[in-house]
C-alpha cells in the first residue's frame, strides 16, 4: 500500500503520514515513511509518503501510489505516480470545483477544513481527510485507527487534543 499526503507546509501532511504509519505498525506490518525535505520543500510544498506491507518494502519515495490525499490543488501534480484504479481524496476547500480527474481513477471530494471547523478543531483538516480515507478504503478498523491517532499525539506531548482529534477523525469518517 502506497499513500501520499500532500499539501502546503502547515497543513499537517507529515503528521498525516505518521498517523497512518502508526496504524500499520500496530497491525505488525513493515512500514516506511518519507517526508519531502530540502529542495522539494521550497515554495511551501510538503508531502509525506507512507508504504506498508506484510512483505519487504521497496523504495521510500512515491512511485506507484494507491491513494493520494491532496490537501491543495498543486498536490494533484503527483497524480502522475498514481496506479490505475487508484484513489484521490481532494480537500475541496482548496481544490477548485472544475478540476477534473481522469476516469481511470477513483476520486472523492471532502471539505476537510470546513468539517474541521465544524468540530472546533481548525488545525485538524488533515485528520478529517484520514477519517474519510479509512472509511472509504476500509484500511484499518475504526477503533484501532483512533488508538494510533491518540498515540501519535500523546507521544508529541499533545495528549490533551485527543478528544478534539477524534472528533475531527469521526467527522471525516462519517462524511462518506
Amino acid at each position: 500500500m502506497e499513500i501520499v499526503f500532500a499539501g502546503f507546509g502547515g497543513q499537517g501532511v507529515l503528521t498525516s503520514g505518521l498517523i497512518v504509519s502508526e496504524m500499520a505498525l500496530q497491525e505488525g506490518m513493515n512500514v516506511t515513511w518519507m517526508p519531502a525535505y530540502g529542495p522539494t520543500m521550497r515554495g511551501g510544498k510538503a508531502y509525506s509518503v507512507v508504504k506498508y506491507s506484510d512483505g519487504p518494502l521497496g523504495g521510500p519515495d512515491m512511485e506507484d501510489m494507491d491513494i493520494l490525499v491532496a490537501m491543495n490543488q498543486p498536490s494533484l501534480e503527483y497524480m502522475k505516480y498514481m496506479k490505475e484504479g487508484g484513489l484521490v481524496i481532494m480537500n475541496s476547500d482548496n481544490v477548485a470545483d472544475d478540476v477534473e480527474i481522469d476516469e481511470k481513477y477513483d476520486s472523492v471530494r471532502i471539505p476537510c477544513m470546513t468539517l474541521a471547523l465544524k468540530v472546533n478543531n481548525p488545525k485538524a483538516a488533515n485528520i478529517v481527510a484520514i477519517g474519510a480515507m479509512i472509511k472509504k478504503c476500509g484500511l484499518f478498523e475504526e477503533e484501532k485507527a483512533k488508538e494510533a491517532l491518540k498515540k501519535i499525539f500523546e507521544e508529541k506531548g499533545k495528549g490533551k487534543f485527543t478528544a478534539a482529534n477524534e472528533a475531527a477523525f469521526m467527522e471525516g469518517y462519517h462524511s462518506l
Partner: protein
Amino acid sequence: MKKMWKGNHAIAEAALRAGCQFYAGYPITPQTEVGEYLSSRMPELGRTFLQAENEMSAVYMIFGSYACGMRSMTSSSGPGFSLKQEGIAYMCANNYPAVFANVQRWGPGLGTLDSAQTDYLRDTRGGGNGDYRVIVYAPNSIQETVDLMYNAFDVAEKYRNPVEIMSEAALGQMMEPVAFPEFKERTEDLGWTFDGTNRPHGRIENPEKPGFVRNKIKTMEENEQQWESYMVEDAEYIFVAFGLPSRTTRNAVEQLRAKGEKVGLIRPITVWPFPAKAFAEAKGDIKGLISVESTDAGQLIEDVALTAKKTGHGNAPVYGLFSGQNIPKTKEIIEYFEGIKAGQMKEVF
C-alpha cells in the same frame, strides 16, 4: 514493540548503544539531525558532544580522542565529508579506529540535497592521499543501519581502521520501525592507546613496513565481506544494487521472476570490501550483470565489472542503470531490463 525512527536519529541512538562516548561534528543537510540528536542525548548519558568550527577540526578531535581509545565518531555529507578525508587518511596512517557516517547528498561541489550514491568511488577507494581502505557499510533500511552501526566500533577497533556507515539522504530523512539493541560498553584497554606513559603504539612504523598495508587490506577483504543474495543461484541476469536502489531492484526482480525471467539480485552490504564471494556463488550461465545505482556517470558498475572478471564471469556484458538524483523506480528497472532483452541497451563493459 518497534517504534518509528527517523534514519538520522536512529544512527545516532545506535552509536550511543554501541558505546560511543564522543561526537564532534559540523551541521550539513541532510545529516544535521545526527548531531542535533546527540547534542541533547549525550549530556544526558554523561558523554561529550562538541560542535566543531569546521569538518577538519571535528575529524581531528576524534583522531585525538580515539588515539586515547575513546569510542568516538563524526558524521557529514557531500562537501563536508570531502573535508574529512585528510583526517581519515591520517587515521589510516596511524592505525587509529574511528567511526564515520556519511549521509550522501547528490553531486560534486555543493551538490543538491537529493538522495544519491555519488560518493561511492571516493569512499570505497579511501578518498584521501596514500594507499588505504575504509570498511564501508551501505545499509538499505533503518533497522539495518542500526545493526551495522552497533557493530561498527568493534570492527574499527579490531582492525584499527576507520569504518564508515554510508547512508543516503532519503535513508536519513525517512522513518521505519526500529528495535534497538541494549547499551554496551567496551571496558578493556585496547593495549596500544595513548595514556601518557609512552607505551608502544605500533603507529607510524607499521604502514611503512613492506607488505603491511597490503596485508591489512587483504585480511579485511577476506573477513568482512557482507552481502545479501536474492534468487541468484540459477539467474541468467544478475542485478547489483546497494542501499535504497536495492529495494526497488528487489521488487523488480520479484516482478520479473513472476513473469518467468531468470533474474537475481546481489546486494552488497559492505561496498568495501566488495562482496566478490557473492559473485563466486552465482553458478548460472550469466548473460548479463546490471548495476542499478543513484549516480550519473556510473560508479558501482566499475566494481561489478572488476568483480565479474575476478570471479570467472568476465565474459558477461555489464549494463548500468544510473538514476542520478533519484532512487530508480521499480518500473524503470523493469523497463530497462526489457530493453536489455530486446537488444536495445548497450553494455558499459
